């Protein structure tokens, strides 16, 4: 007989089996998850808004469907949380920011509509760094809900800006969550909290109803128990949407049975990432993870990122686009209500970015895309640390200097901005622990290569159990 605690860490197929076989009802599951989210969410500052009455109503509809034999797929009846920059009609959507603390929309975000359509049960909104951290932020406290606390060690940051989604999944508060990334906001918290997560190709998942930070960079994606679960979720949330001007007008079908064998794949990596950029305590963990990938048949070959001023390009693109999105806020006294001094200063300064600089950045971006296309003619994917080390202490400034000398060879240390500029997907795979805290790999592929990334992820997770570990006290 399994422990009830196992229920909170069960993967989607197992939960679906329990629901379809009526061993547990959708209402019972929703009540249990909502109670756990309400009780433990504040421990990690992960909960922005509990939606228990709405969840129970949805769950009752699921139970009625299941009673009639109306099944809608593996996500039917599965509770989840959504980052609080995704609108849910009639309920608060605060964007994690005091100036928007009372904001209510009259429509659901597309991703929430799609999940509702397949019977998933939204149980709560999860915390985010204010305005997804676009202006920059120095402290983890830059959120209406307070600093995201890491379930593995609450003196450590959960990472951001999808702090709530990562912490909630890591601590077993929800089976899966929907977060977002402009540059790093899925990869970072997933790495720090030891959670599997997927940043889709730009345009694959509709941005309709998601707070716009940077129109040409924002992506919505899942945090879940496994690569398999991420594939099942992406299958439901991806697709064309005429309400999103950036929509790629493509669907995604999770098709593991048709994935190329991992032994036929080549992945590029930079030795210096794992030998010098990675924090010393993390290096043996990464080394062991690479060995697992090699055992799975994946051929690891040396690769280099194309050379571009990634930081300046992404800062200018995000800065100019967000300054336009939030211009009325920035020019009003309300901007000073934001929680982080760097965020406030960054937003104001970004109004100074000249159009010529933004256009130059976007022209360089086209060259970045072309160079990545060239890179991917020689490899199928890139493998790098998700973050070079463990989660930082919550009280420490996030712009603290990196300890130790900076390696001369950049390796793939710029992979997060580079891949985001090119609109590339990434799968985050927890791969072990350093000093008691999770570390993770990121696997990046060409546009619309999610099935390939998920195949690598499934193979890795069949050989390891890092993605099934539970933080102490959960």
């Amino acid at each position, binding site marked *: *007989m*399994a*422990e*009830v*605690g*196992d*229920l909170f860490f*069960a993967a989607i197929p197992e939960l679906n089996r329990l629901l379809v076989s009526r*061993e*547990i009802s959708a209402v*019972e599951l929703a*009540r*249990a998850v909502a109670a*756990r989210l*309400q*009780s*433990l969410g*504040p*421990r990690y*500052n992960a909960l922005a808004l509990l939606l228990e009455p709405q969840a129970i109503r949805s769950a009752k509809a699921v139970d009625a469907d299941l009673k009639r034999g109306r099944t809608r797929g593996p996500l039917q009846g599965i509770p989840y949380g959504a980052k609080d920059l995704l609108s849910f009609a009639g309920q608060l959507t605060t964007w994690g920011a005091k100036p928007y603390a009372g904001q209510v929309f009259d429509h659901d975000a597309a991703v929430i509509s799609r999940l509702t359509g397949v019977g998933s049960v939204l149980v709560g909104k999860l915390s985010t760094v204010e305005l997804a951290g676009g202006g*920059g932020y*120095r*402290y983890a406290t830059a959120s209406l809900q*307070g*600093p995201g*606390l890491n379930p593995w060690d*609450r003196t450590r940051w959960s990472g951001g800006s999808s702090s709530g989604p990562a912490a909630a999944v890591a601590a077993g508060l929800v089976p899966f969550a929907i977060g977002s990334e402009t540059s790093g906001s899925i990869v970072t918290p997933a790495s720090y909290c030891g959670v599997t997560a997927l940043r889709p190709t730009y345009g694959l998942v509709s941005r309709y109803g998601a707070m716009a930070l940077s129109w*040409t960079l924002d992506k919505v994606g899942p945090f879940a128990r496994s690569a398999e679960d991420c594939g099942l979720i992406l299958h439901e949330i991806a697709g064309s949407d005429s309400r999103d001007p950036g929509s790629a007008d493509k669907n995604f079908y999770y098709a593991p049975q048709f994935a190329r064998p991992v032994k036929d794949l080549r992945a590029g990596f930079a030795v210096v990432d794992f030998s010098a950029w990675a924090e010393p305590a993390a290096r043996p963990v990464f080394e062991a993870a690479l060995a697992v990938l090699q055992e799975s048949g994946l051929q690891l070959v040396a690769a280099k990122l194309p050379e571009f*001023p990634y*930081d*300046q390009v992404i*800062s*200018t693109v995000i*800065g100019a686009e967000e300054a336009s999105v939030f211009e009325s806020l920035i020019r009003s006294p309300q901007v*000073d209500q934001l929680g982080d*001094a*760097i965020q*406030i*200063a*960054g937003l*104001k*300064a*970004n109004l*100074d*970015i*000249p159009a*010529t*600089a933004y256009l*130059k*950045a*976007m*022209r*360089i*971006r*086209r*060259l970045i*895309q072309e160079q990545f296309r060239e890179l991917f003619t020689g490899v199928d994917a890139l493998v790098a640390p998700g973050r070079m080390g463990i989660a930082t202490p*919550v*009280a420490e*400034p996030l712009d603290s200097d990196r300890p130790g000398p900076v390696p001369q060879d950049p390796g793939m240390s710029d992979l997060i901005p580079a891949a985001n500029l090119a609109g590339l997907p990434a799968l985050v795979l927890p791969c072990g622990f350093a000093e008691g805290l999770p570390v993770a790999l990121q696997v990046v592929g060409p546009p619309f290569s999610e099935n390939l990334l998920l195949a690598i992820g499934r193979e890795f997770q069949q050989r390891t159990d890092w993605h099934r570990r539970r933080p102490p006290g959960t």
Partner: protein
Amino acid sequence: MKITRRAMTAVLASLGAQAQTPARPALTAEITAGPEAELQSAREQVRANVTALSQFEIPMSTEPAFEFKA
């Protein structure tokens, strides 16, 4: 996995006790240079980025990575 409803009830009852968790760790006082200094610093960073981009040479024919269609 098989779970009894009695076990479920017991876990839900225990969540009330778990909710009384220790306070979150105290944070040290945040250090800022003052709003004007922070804004000056941010503006300098913008200028530095703009300069760096202007000095990065690219073919004249390169178009921005977005398109307008009528």
